[in-house]
């Protein structure tokens, strides 16, 4: 146990602590770091130039998360409703892409969305003769790529609470006079929501911190927080600012996870209160 903890401390805790510190230092004149305390890096984040980028990346990540959660929940619901002996296979097939190479999965969409890509070919076959539609290097392409890459994760996150749900609860609701839709809205959804929310937080954070998908499918036109961090470290050479953005990213993740935990806890809190009354 000790060697593993040592490894995690030396190569995760300490480096992350370093980033935390780095965010409060000044950028040196020719790149590099000047060891003087400053809050400039954080001031820069709220600068309209960068704030705009953050808002755009939040919008793109938010849209991708919303779509992935809706489609992923529906797929997980369908898997949980399938005959029991088929569920493991269906789930495995749904999740398999998630564990395979991210770059390749993203690249596959370049092949599909290219000006002379497969979708254009398909349109031509159906008799379309105009200019090939520009699909690659658009916000839509970035969102599609993010949804594609994180959908399996959402399916997995949604399936667990759906599969755990006692089917008699839905039957009880029907027995008490509720329609199928009311049963979904009042019993199934509220009971599976906390798990789904946790999954959504991860998709959002992974999307907003992404830099591969915007770089490959957005053609560099769309900067996400991940691209900004990448640039500070590899091109702009402003490590302290890059560290500050990373801290914001981690703060967003922690904040959203805390919110989710509080929301999930509130139910439990009501329960405790009830015990006294």
């Amino acid at each position, binding site marked *: 146990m000790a060697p593993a903890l040592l490894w995690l401390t030396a190569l995760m805790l300490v480096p992350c602590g370093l980033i935390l510190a780095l965010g409060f230092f000044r950028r040196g004149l020719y790149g590099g770091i000047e060891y003087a305390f400053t809050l400039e890096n954080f001031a820069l984040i709220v600068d309209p130039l960068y704030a705009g980028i953050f808002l755009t990346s939040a919008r793109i990540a938010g849209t991708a998360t919303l779509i992935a959660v809706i489609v992923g929940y529906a797929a997980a619901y369908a898997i949980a409703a399938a005959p029991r002996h088929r569920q493991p296979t269906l789930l495995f097939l749904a999740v398999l892409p998630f564990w395979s190479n991210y770059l390749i999965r993203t690249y596959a969409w370049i092949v599909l969305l290219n000006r002379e890509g497969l979708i254009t070919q398909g349109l031509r076959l159906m008799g379309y003769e105009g200019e090939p539609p520009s699909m690659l290097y658009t916000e839509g392409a970035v969102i599609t790529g993010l949804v594609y890459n994180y959908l399996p994760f959402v399916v997995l996150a949604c399936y667990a609470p759906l599969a755990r749900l006692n089917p*008699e609860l839905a039957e009880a609701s*029907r027995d008490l006079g509720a329609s199928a839709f009311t049963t979904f809205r009042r019993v199934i959804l509220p009971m599976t929501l906390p798990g789904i929310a946790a999954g959504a937080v991860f998709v959002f954070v992974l999307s907003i911190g992404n830099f591969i998908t915007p770089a490959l499918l957005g053609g560099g036109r769309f900067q996400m927080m991940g691209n900004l961090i990448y640039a500070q470290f590899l091109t702009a050479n402003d490590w302290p600012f890059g560290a500050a953005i990373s801290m914001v990213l981690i703060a967003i993740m922690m904040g959203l996870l805390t919110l989710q935990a509080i929301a999930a806890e509130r*139910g439990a809190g009501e329960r405790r209160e009830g015990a006294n009354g």
Partner: protein
Amino acid sequence: MTALLSIGGVTKRFGRVTAIDRLSLDIHENEFFALLGASGSGKTTLLRMLAGFETPEAGAILLDGKDISRMPPNRRPVNLMFQSYALFPHMSVEGNIAYGLEMERLAKPEIARRVGEIMEVTELSSMARRKPDQLSGGQKQRVALARALVKRPHLLLLDEPLGALDKKLRAAMQLELKRLQHEVGITFIVVTHDQEEALVMADRVAILRDGRLLQCGTPHEVYEHPANRFAADFIGVMNFIEEDGRTLALRPERIRLFPERADRTTEGRVTARAYHGLDLQLHVETPLSPRPLLVRLTADAADRRPVAEGDTVTLGWNDADTRIFKD
């Protein structure tokens, strides 16, 4: 008496398995009815058809004269108390009970009044705001019952209602359920595998086996006049004596020790003796059957004439106390 519920020639198959086979049964208004059977007898399938979660392949289920066999569960004036209770864990006791009334779109004050009422009857008022996971097994059972009763169904179905409770609580709840049924005046159908429970609670009992009805009658009828060997064996404890190509069935409590007068007597040797508090049970080896006969003596009778293992005893009984089955 006209039937409230009339099940006519109902058949249900799951793949190649016939769960219910051309079953017919009438249940009367205000009756406490028990469906008794071992697991796999089809009793739960029958209950689920009455609730609307399964559709029969053939036959009709008439409630108040109307066929409800194809009606979805949420439209039926029938409610089910689930074996697992199926309480909504994210709703309070009050919320669980109100749910069914909200589905009827009743006015809020009306809902509050009826929920309050039923919580009084089931002694749940003090825990209205608790969540199901803060309740004991007995309390959960009462919430499940209240949630179904508050809708004033024409028919209340209870799937192994006492199955999850411990032995002492079960005994108390058996009487409690009976009292409640009288108080609310609703027809109850209870599914159980526990023959004692069925005898104690029900006005009438139906014994199911392999999807067919073996016998239906009052507890007294099915106990004293079992329709066939299986029913005799299933309900209570029975001694079987094979002779002349027929089977003689005899309850252990009908056998007397050293009787002064009896239609039949036999000699035997006591091989085992077990004290049960209220009674004493003896295993007696006799020439009549390969297995020892079981004899139940009241504590009183046992005190009058103490016996020990290895003793030779005389057993006797009256012909009127035996049932005879051919084949």
